[in-house]
Structures are given as structure tokens and as C-alpha cells.
């Protein structure tokens, strides 16, 4: 049944996301513009310890690794708010149907869209700029994206529950995400921070751990499961599952006590 649901959503998703014939073309164009921005930024501001190509590779890998997690996170929050505003959540709750399953199906499709975007980025970088890792690493890199989808899905559902049931948190989560992205080492090495911040980052920022795993993989250092970063990621995964259970149960309870939120933050 879940596959029928995913198939049905997928069928109409393309129409919803790309309503005009030139939608796909704009996606390609925006990918090329992003790569050009990275290329010229690296030309102008390459750090002393990296040449231009080294910094371009650094920025590109940062984008490749963090695009999908942040995209899933935001789409999940937006989706849950929209489900609430359109009354679908109430209908599902009354019919005792699973909101979790519906959100999972939608986000699976956003995941596929994210993978296509990553494929476009890799293809464009290889054709017009410079691919900073061997093409043979791509399947392993995509496999890593599949693994990371699950913890991000739980994080997204958890934050989405707060936004849906209390009507608050979307804006502040936007700010937090900017900081998480800034502090993950996507744009510059986290070694430039004071030591106490560096030691704190794995505890407060799972994206820093994930990015380190990705960089190590693309440097062809392998995907060993017993590294400090992987252990950290698994701890975060269990924390996100717990957070999902807590926020959803408490959120639903608050919703049933007070009724729907009077307003939603935009």
C-alpha cells in the first residue's frame, strides 16, 4: 500500500513542482550558476592553505553533502504545516490514519528529487568545471545519502510536529539551520574556530559529523563504520527518533487540549 501511495504522489509531484515546461531547464541553469559562483569565489578567496581548485572542490563537496539533508528538513517542515492548514491532518486524525506514513511518502519523493539535483551537480561539475573526486565514488556517495535520509526524516518530522501542533518554530528553525550549516565546515574548515568550539561542534551539530564522513569517503578513505563520526551519527539518529516520539505525542496532546493553533509562523 505504501508503494501505491508513493507511486500516486510521484505521478502528480512533477506537475506540482514543475508546472511549466521550462522548469527543468531552470533547474539546470541554477545548478550551473551555483557552480560558477563557487568557481569564481574560490578564484577570489582561496584560503592560503588551498589553491583555487582545492577550494572549489571544498565548496562543491560541502554543497553536495549538505544539499539533500537540509532540503529534506525544510520540505518536511513546510509539508506538515501545509497538511495542517489544508485540513488534511484533521481528516487523518479523525479517520485514524497515519500522518507519519503520508509524510514519509512525500519526503521519499523529495529525496528522489534531491538525488536528481545532486546528479545534475556532479554531471555539470564534471562537464564544465572540475569534478573533485573519481566518478567511481558516486555510487558510494549516493548510498550515503540513502543512509542519511532516515535520521533527517525523523528530525524533519520532529520539528514539523512542533510547527504543526503549536504553530511556532519555523522561523527560528531557519535561523538554527543557517548556523548549523555555517558551523558544519561546508564553507571553510572548522579548524579556524577556537579549540573549545571545535570540541563542542560534534555534540551540537550532527551535520559537521556527517560532512566529515562524506569528505572522508570522497577522499577515498573508505566508509568504516567504527569511526568516531559514525558513532556520533548513530547517537544523533536515536536522539531524533526519541525527539520524534516525544514531540509528536506531546504535540498531539496539546493540540487535543487547546485545538488548532490560531496562527502559524511564516
Amino acid at each position, binding site marked *: 500500500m505504501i508503494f501505491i501511495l508513493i507511486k500516486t504522489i510521484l505521478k502528480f509531484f512533477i506537475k506540482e513542482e514543475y508546472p511549466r515546461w521550462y522548469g527543468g531547464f531552470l533547474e539546470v541553469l541554477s545548478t550551473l550558476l551555483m557552480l560558477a559562483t563557487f568557481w569564481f569565489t574560490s578564484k577570489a578567496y582561496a584560503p592560503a592553505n588551498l589553491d583555487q581548485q582545492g577550494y572549489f572542490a571544498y565548496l562543491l563537496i560541502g554543497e553536495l553533502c549538505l544539499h539533500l539533508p537540509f532540503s529534506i528538513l525544510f520540505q518536511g517542515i513546510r509539508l506538515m504545516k501545509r497538511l495542517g492548514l489544508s485540513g488534511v491532518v484533521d481528516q487523518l*486524525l*479523525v479517520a485514524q490514519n497515519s500522518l507519519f506514513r503520508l509524510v514519509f511518502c512525500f519526503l521519499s519523493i523529495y529525496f528522489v528529487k534531491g538525488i536528481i539535483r545532486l546528479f545534475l551537480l556532479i554531471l555539470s561539475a564534471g562537464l564544465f568545471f572540475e569534478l573533485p573526486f573519481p566518478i567511481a565514488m558516486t555510487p558510494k556517495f549516493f548510498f550515503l545519502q540513502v543512509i542519511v535520509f532516515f535520521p533527517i526524516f525523523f528530525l524533519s518530522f520532529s520539528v514539523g510536529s512542533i510547527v504543526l501542533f503549536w504553530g511556532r518554530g519555523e522561523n527560528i528553525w531557519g535561523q538554527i539551520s543557517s548556523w548549523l550549516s555555517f558551523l558544519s565546515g561546508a564553507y571553510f574548515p572548522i579548524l579556524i574556530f577556537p579549540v573549545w568550539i571545535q570540541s563542542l561542534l560534534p555534540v551540537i551539530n550532527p551535520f559537521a559529523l556527517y560532512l566529515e564522513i562524506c569528505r572522508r569517503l570522497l577522499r577515498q578513505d573508505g566508509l568504516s563504520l567504527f569511526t568516531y563520526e559514525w558513532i556520533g551519527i548513530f547517537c544523533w539518529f536515536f536522539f531524533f527518533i526519541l525527539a520524534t516520539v516525544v514531540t509528536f505525542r506531546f504535540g498531539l496532546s496539546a493540540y487535543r487540549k487547546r485545538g488548532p493553533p490560531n496562527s502559524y509562523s511564516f
Partner: protein
Amino acid sequence: MTGPNGAGKTTLLRLLAGLLEIDSGELTRQGRCGWFAFRSLSLMDRLSGMEHIKVLSSVYGESHEQYLSHWKQLEGFQEMLETDLGHCSQGMKALLGLYSSILSLPETLLWDEPFSALSPFNQNLLSLNWCDFTGARTLITTHHGQIPEGFTEVAL
């Protein structure tokens, strides 16, 4: 259920639906319920009504075809099925919301002020052929003076 604004019609309906918790007493629900309360925002604006219904019916996994032909008699329903929801009127969106509430084939329908956005023609057609349209017992809230012809019983 009829009554003036602020009388608590919607609150009671939400209690019956399980969308609000009761402070005291006991409430027992039997069978599956369907819910409607008008919302002007749609889930996916660029999908037509029919596409929207296909997505939602795949959530419930039930066949609703037996009711569709009846609903097509309603003013604006066929147009709603073919039009992107972003371009639908409030009345057409209300029709979609009402139809969505029967997609799970509920035994009881709880409709909060369904007639506010419907034309007199649609109100009468619905209320005179209730079983053909829904196949479920239905409790609705409405304002005084909005009770269409087919309704002979007022519960509260």
C-alpha cells in the same frame, strides 16, 4: 446541531471527532469517522481536484467510485475535478473538502458548517439524497435558518 455563533457547536463536533479531549465524563466512539471543516488552503495548488482526490484516496486505500457519479450532479463539482485547486472558488474547495471526508468510507460523518460555502441548489441536492452521496450517518453543524429542506431532525 444549530445555534448562534459561540454556542459551542464546533467544539462539540471536535470533541465527538476526537480532535479535542474531554475534561470530564466519558465519550465512546464506534467505527470510523470522516471529518470536514472548511479550509481555504489546499494541499497542492497546482493539482486538479481529481488529482487531489487520487492522492488522498491512495492514503486511505479505499474505493470511493460508487459515490463519485452522485457528486458529479452537484453544481461546480465536475469543474472542480478538472481545475487546478489554485484557481478553484471557495465553493469548489468546499466540495472537495466534503468529498475528501468520505474517502475513508466512514460510518459516521462529522461536518462543521458544510452549507456555508454551498449554493442553495447543492444544499438541497445533498440533503435530499444524503445516503446516495455519503452512505454514512452524518452530524452537521449549521446556523439557524440554514437548514435545507431535506432535514427533518435537529439533534441539538
